[in-house]
Structure formats: structure tokens, C-alpha cells
């Protein structure tokens, strides 16, 4: 069964006809070819697919695309300024070596943005707790935690 869906992705209206079982992450990656959102597991554990839906971080592997009907979706491709300048959270990851292979990174950044919007000056413990749903196999989290603390400070509680 196919369904018609429409939503806003990174500020642009998009619509398509997809199979009803199409996951939001599949729609983003395969239909829209926005491949910055990654799939690292099949049990909603790794967080590589994290995007924002109506301003909140969600795992886009955990809902079907039709559940995002009419929603405002932000993916990693929509985070930097249109002129290419990195968002302060992205910049913080770069300055603090908060990424290695880069595969978990988009999910980490999307989750961190949501977290930092309500935590302008988080503690190490708070940041680690906020990463409960995001796995990284490269960095040992040390520099991700540092990055998020620096990014949150630079953001001052605002995305």
C-alpha cells in the first residue's frame, strides 16, 4: 500500500508517494537523498539516525514517514548556515576533535543541539546522561562530551 506524504525538510516543502511501511529515515536517505542521516542499527539503540521533528530530537528509524506528515524536519544537512558556516555546535565538535570516522556524528550533533537548547552550561555528568541513546565506537566519548559542553556554552541555550 502506498501513501502520499508531505512535510518540510530543512525548510523546504517535500512530498512523495511511498510505501506505507517506509521508515522516516529511509524516506530521508533514499527518497530525498539526504544521506547525512545514518543507519547504524535496527533496534533504535545507536542514535545515528537522529533528526529533529518539530524542534525535538527523534530517532528517524523509529517512526514511519507518514507519522511525520506535515511536520517540520531538520537533518544534519540543514544545520550549518546557508553560506556554509558551521553552527557553533558543529564548530565545537571540530575544535574538540569530537569525531573520528564521522558515522555517528550527525546523530550526535542533532541530539546535542536539542540537549543544549535547554542546558546552556551542562556538567560532564549531564552531558553523558544525554548521550544515553547515542553510540560511538571511535572516540571513547571523551571528546564528544568536551565538544557538547563547549557547543552548549557557545549556543547560550538557543538553537
Amino acid at each position, binding site marked *: 500500500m502506498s501513501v502520499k506524504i508531505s512535510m518540510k525538510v530543512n525548510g523546504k516543502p517535500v512530498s512523495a508517494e511511498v*510505501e506505507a*511501511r517506509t521508515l522516516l529515515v529511509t524516506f530521508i*536517505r533514499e527518497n530525498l*537523498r*539526504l*544521506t*547525512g*542521516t*545514518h*543507519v*547504524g*542499527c*535496527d*533496534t533504535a*539503540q*545507536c542514535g*545515528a539516525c537522529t533528526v529533529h521533528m518539530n524542534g525535538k530530537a527523534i530517532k528517524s528509524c523509529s517512526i514511519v514517514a507518514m507519522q511525520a506528515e506535515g511536520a517540520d524536519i531538520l*537533518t*544534519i*544537512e540543514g*544545520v*550549518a548556515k546557508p553560506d*556554509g558556516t*558551521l553552527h557553533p555546535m*558543529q564548530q565545537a*565538535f*571540530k*575544535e574538540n*576533535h569530537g*569525531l*573520528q*570516522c*564521522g*558515522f*555517528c*556524528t*550527525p546523530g550526535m*550533533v542533532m541530539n546535542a543541539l536539542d540537549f543544549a537548547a535547554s542546558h546552556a552550561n551542562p556538567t*560532564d555528568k549531564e*552531558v*553523558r*546522561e544525554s*548521550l*544515553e541513546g*547515542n*553510540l*560511538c*565506537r*571511535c*572516540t*571513547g*566519548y*571523551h*571528546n*564528544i*562530551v568536551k565538544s557538547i559542553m563547549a557547543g552548549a556554552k557557545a549556543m547560550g541555550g538557543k538553537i
Partner: protein
Amino acid sequence: MSAPLIGARIQRKEDYRFLTGAGQYTDDVSVPGQAYACFVRSPHAHANIRSISAEKAKRSPGVIAVYTGADLAAAKVGGLPCGWLITDVNGQPMKEPPHPCLAQGKARYVGDHVAVVVAATLEQAKDAAEKVEVDYEVLPAVVDPAKARAKGAPALHDIALDNTCYVWALGDKAKVDEAFAKAAHVTRLDFVNNRLIPNAIEPRAAIGAYSRADESYTLYVANQNPHVERLLMTAFVLGLPEHKVRVVAPDVGGGFGSKIYLYAEDVVVTWAARQLNRPVKWTSDRSEAFVSDAHGRDHVTTAELALDKDGKFLAMRVQTTANLGAYLSTFASCIPTILYATLLAGQYTTPLIYCEVTAVFTNTTPVDAYRGAGRPEATYVVERLVETAARELKIDPAEIRRRNFIRNFPYQTPVALQYDTGNYEATLDAALKLGDVSGFQARKEQSLKNGKLRGIGYAAYIEACGIAPSAVAGSLGARAGLFEAGEIRVHPTGSVTVFTGSHSHGQGHETTFAQVVADRLGIPIENVDIVHGDTSKVLFGMGTYGSRSIAVGGTAIVKAMDKIIAKGKKIAAHLLEASESDIEYDRGEFKVAGTDRKKMFGEIAFAAYVPHNYPHDKLEPGLNENAFYDPSNFTFPAGTYVCEVEVDRDTGQVTIERFAAVDDFGKIINPMIVEGQVHGGLTQGIGQALTEACRYDASGQLVTGSFMDYCLPRAGDVPSFKVDTRETPCTHNPLGVKGCGEAGAIGAPAAVMNAITDALGVKDLPMPATAQTVWRSLQQKAA
């Protein structure tokens, strides 16, 4: 002249694309017209395949083809080769059972590939795969390596009815036994080095494509060594002309060893693309990755250390049974032998060492190199023994290490390696300070007041990296060379493209290698691009594993630069009307000695490509050089880790309160990147010690087959680390580098387990020391 770049904390060149979602991993690649593959995998650990009926699957919507082992056999597709021949104690070659790309009559582990469905969409392929009917005759399975050779154990392979691949040994057993008989003290430990599942966050993926226009193939694959992948696949499996196959390993999302190997899926999509004249894409999902990516470790070991009354090590005796899984993966055979037993000297002068390894087949996923590969297992043996011996002899664990450190270099160990350099006391002293060991007693008392136990543990590791001198590796059974290749292409405007056979999948080569090149050529780092991971661009390469990239791949680049500079000097001499022997070169400046007359690197490049005023009688135009570098020895990074844990008596929960790591990696190009490598390695090592348990049930089902069951460390499981380095440059490569990728995973498990056993006051505890394991140990002690 620009500021020195070697040793500078340069932010990474690759980060921008990863941070903006512009990375191109294999699954992000979309080849026009691609079809999708889904593998039908055995649900049984051991079963005869009586028949396969693909009729229903073939009629399923969108299905293009279904292939089974019979199709591959008819097409004469070979099995997967093993790259290292081990010769057993009787001088016989190891048993090498066939490793078919799709099962031939028998499945030998849960996840073994039995058939493949190719369909127009991924969903259609998955739907149809469920309709492939396989009639299995389920057989008894063996999963425990300690039971694989037992009488009556089910045999996996006809050519190895005792499930034994080889029994191999290193060292003089008679002399070692003699030393043990005379020793004042013997420390003995029996333990399991737990089986691990690598779990790079990017699952494996492969896209095979065929072009009728020039009868060529392209394989995109998440792999750590595309040239090796191509060589193995073309020469040993598919019988294709190597020059007609291009292998591209684009951005790769972590490897840790699991993406070194030639896997059946890579072969099948390449072969199927030719049959169907259509690109075929396969992306592993995580559940598949758990059963089909090569696993790591899985040793059952008895280890003994003989000491005199003063704690001086006299001899070591080690017996290990290593689980190879159901088939020999690409480098499986050398991991528990060449990369294990040779490291048992550690940092110490132990004069006599004997190690015997029995490698067995079981009905489990193949086991191969995983970060550290043999060296973590060796370090665990040595450092658990040393710490336990210190406790038994009531000698301070730092002091017992000092009494046995190697101090004179080069040092020939009794297990075949020659250490070129090191300063173990320096890293130990620094680690004691960084870990504030002198304040431990006070912290322990404070913990006790809070009702908690506290313990401290050390690990002084060594590893052999920079793999490897080809002749040495060849004499030990390697079926490949282990050199590296590099090419420097200088463009007319003076910018540079560097091609390297090393592969980056998180290590940051695009930055580190660019630092080396920009520094030596005196050009801005922005003017240097590093290209890797494409056999059609890079001249050749052996790839990235064994912490070899900077030591071997980096040196190949330096050698190519030497040729560029040598040619540049000739051009400069001509332009400056000086004798070539009078030209001095220093980071981008070609100078006439003792004068202020000079030419900059950019001017030389331009002259080489616009050769109007040029020594045509002596030189070709252009500025493009390559080099192959075969190392003369391994490199020997070493260091000391100090771990401090707190244990909750009521729950058994272990918290790592402090972790101090001091490593000697020789010269460091980018400290920021090196620290990141250490953090990541430590966390994988802590994962092995505390959280990661790979469990099969008796029938061979993997019961830890998802991130819900297999506990990868999360941010809350690890502390912030204290890391530092000491530097004794490697003596046999021009950069003085040793490599840093695996150290953390090698040293951490022993440090953590030494700390936990100290806190609990027990001799040993199995890894992973989960809350349940620790709680049980506490209850046993109380009872």
C-alpha cells in the same frame, strides 16, 4: 617559512564533510539502476542442507534472481582464502577447509550465507528472502573452544575431524620446564579472554557493478584495504583480471579490524552484477553484522610465571586454545600465534618463554583480528600474571615491574622480536604521577567510609606495530607482502595531491599525512590533499591495520618526498646556476649554501611543468614521484596505564573513578588525533573488561545479537581520561613514529581487571566484570 606542522594540534581537514552530512559512506553511494541483495542466512549453527527451493522466492514481486551455492559452484567461484599459513608443531601445514561464498551442502554457524536474493528494491529482496525454502537437517553443534577437541564433539569439516586447525608452539619447552622446576615461586592463572564483536557503527556494505563497455568491474565496499580486497577476490576467488577490477572504499565508518577481510558478500555482489548486467547493492543491517562480521579474541588460557624469591621473572609458560570460529577468515590464523605469542615478553627481561596454541573450529562466526589482535590477549596474560605475582610475593606492583624492565636496547626477546628502543621506567613514572597513585590510600579510606570498595590496577603493555617487514612476515607464513606505497603528485601551481595505500576510517590520515607533507615541502596544509581508498587512483596499498599507517604508509610518503626534493635540487641548481651539491633544502626553500640565493618550492614546481629554462639533457619534466617502503623491523609502542575503580558492595556495580594512560608512541605528528585514538582504544578495552559479553547458547544461537543484548560502552560507562605521552623515537623509520591506534584496547583490560581484583581482594574474575559477576564474587567471598 611556515610554522612547523609536525607536532601541532591541527584541526582535521575531513571534519567539515562529516559534520555537515556530506560524508560518502558505501551505503550513501547510489549507482544508477542498482538492484538490492538480501542474504538468506542459516538459522542453525550446524546443519546439512538437504535442499533449497527458490521457486516461491523467484515468483515474488520485483525479484531478479536467486542464487545458491550450487550456482556459484557451477560458475567455478572459489572459496575465501586465508592469507597466513601456520605450520604446526609437527611441521605440517594448518588445516584449511573450504570457505564457500554460499554454503555448499552444509551450514556451519548461525548467519552462514546460504543463498542470495536480488530484487528491484530492498523491501522486495527482504520479502522474497523469507520465501526461500531451505530443508535443514540440524546437527549437534560445538561452540566452546575448550570442548571442540573433546571425544565425540561434532566435526565441522571433513579435513579436520578433530576440529583442530593447528597446534603451534614457540619457545624451548624443556628449558622453560626446567626453570619452573627450580623457581622459588610460581604464579598461575586460568582464564578466558572473552569473545568480542567489533561493531563499527557503520555496518558493512558492498555494491558490485559491471560495465559491458570495457568488461570492467567496480566494487564499492566498506573496507580497510581495497587493494588487498581486489587481489584476493580477483586472483583467488573469481579468477578475474586484476586490472579490470576497481575497488573503492570511500568514507568508512570505523573498522577496528572487522573490515580488513574479504567477505562472501563482497564476492557475491560483484559476481552477481556481471550475471545480471546490473549493479547489485547489499547493506548489512545490525542484526546481520552481529552474526556475519568477524569476531575477536576468544582464548582459553592457562598462564604461569616462574619467579625467584626477589620477584625476578625466570620463565613464562602459556597454553592457549584459540577459537577460530567455523571457517578461517582472511588473517585468522596469524592472530593467536604470530601476533600473540611473540608479545609475551612484554616490557620485561623474562629469559625463557614457551607458548603453545591450539586453534580450533567451532560452530560460531569466524574469529579474526579485532583492535589489537593477539596483542591485547598477550598483554592480558603478562600483566595479570605480573600483578598477581606481586600480590602473592607482597611486592609493590610498580616495584616488581621495575625489577624486571628491559633497559638495554636493542633487545632480543626469547619470542622472536627485537625491540629497537623504549623507556619503560619513564612511562611508568609518569603514569604513577598522572594517576596520583600516592593519593590512592586516602581515596580508598574515603570510599570505605562511604561503604564502597576501591582498587587500583596497572598494566604496562607493549605492542608490535608498523606491520611488517615482508621477508620476516613471509618466513612466518604470510602469503602477502606488508609494505606500503605512496605517491606525491606536485601540480604546476605547487599544490600537491598525495596518494596513499593506507586507508583512513576514522584515524584522520587526511590531516596527519597532510601535516607531514606540508611541513616538509613548506607549503600551506590547505594545498595538500590526501587521496586513499580507490584502486583506480592509488598505485597500490596494503591498507590499514596493526597501527601501521603512519609508520609504514607515512614512511612511503616521506620516501616519495625525498625523490621530489632530490629532483627539485637538480632543477634549482639549474635555475640558480649553481652546482647541485651546493643546494641545501629546508622545508620548501632550495638555497645555494652560504648565500641568500634561493628558489621556493612553488617556483620549482612551475619550472618542472613549464620547462622553458630547464636541464632537458639531464632531467625529465614534471614533478611526480612514488615510493614503496618495506619496514626493516616492527615498531614497539609501549606504556603504562593506571586504573582506579570503586565497587558498590550491594550491587556489584563497578565505576571507573580514574584512568591515567601514559604512552610512548615515538614522535607524534598530531597530539590531538593521538589522544583521540587513545580515548577510543581505552573505551574498547574497558568495554571488554566491563560490559561486552558475546554469548552463544549450547545450540550455537548467538544470544547477544543486538545492541539491546551486547553492551557496547555508552558515555556513562567510561570516565574522562587522563592521557600523556613520553617520546623515544623509533630508530628505523625517518619520522621516528611507532603508531598509536591499538594501544588503548591492548592495555586497558588488564589495568581494569587488576583494579577490580584489588578492590575485591580476589585472585581472578572473568571478563566482563558485570555487576552480576562482581556481586557473585562478593557473595562467594562473604560465604
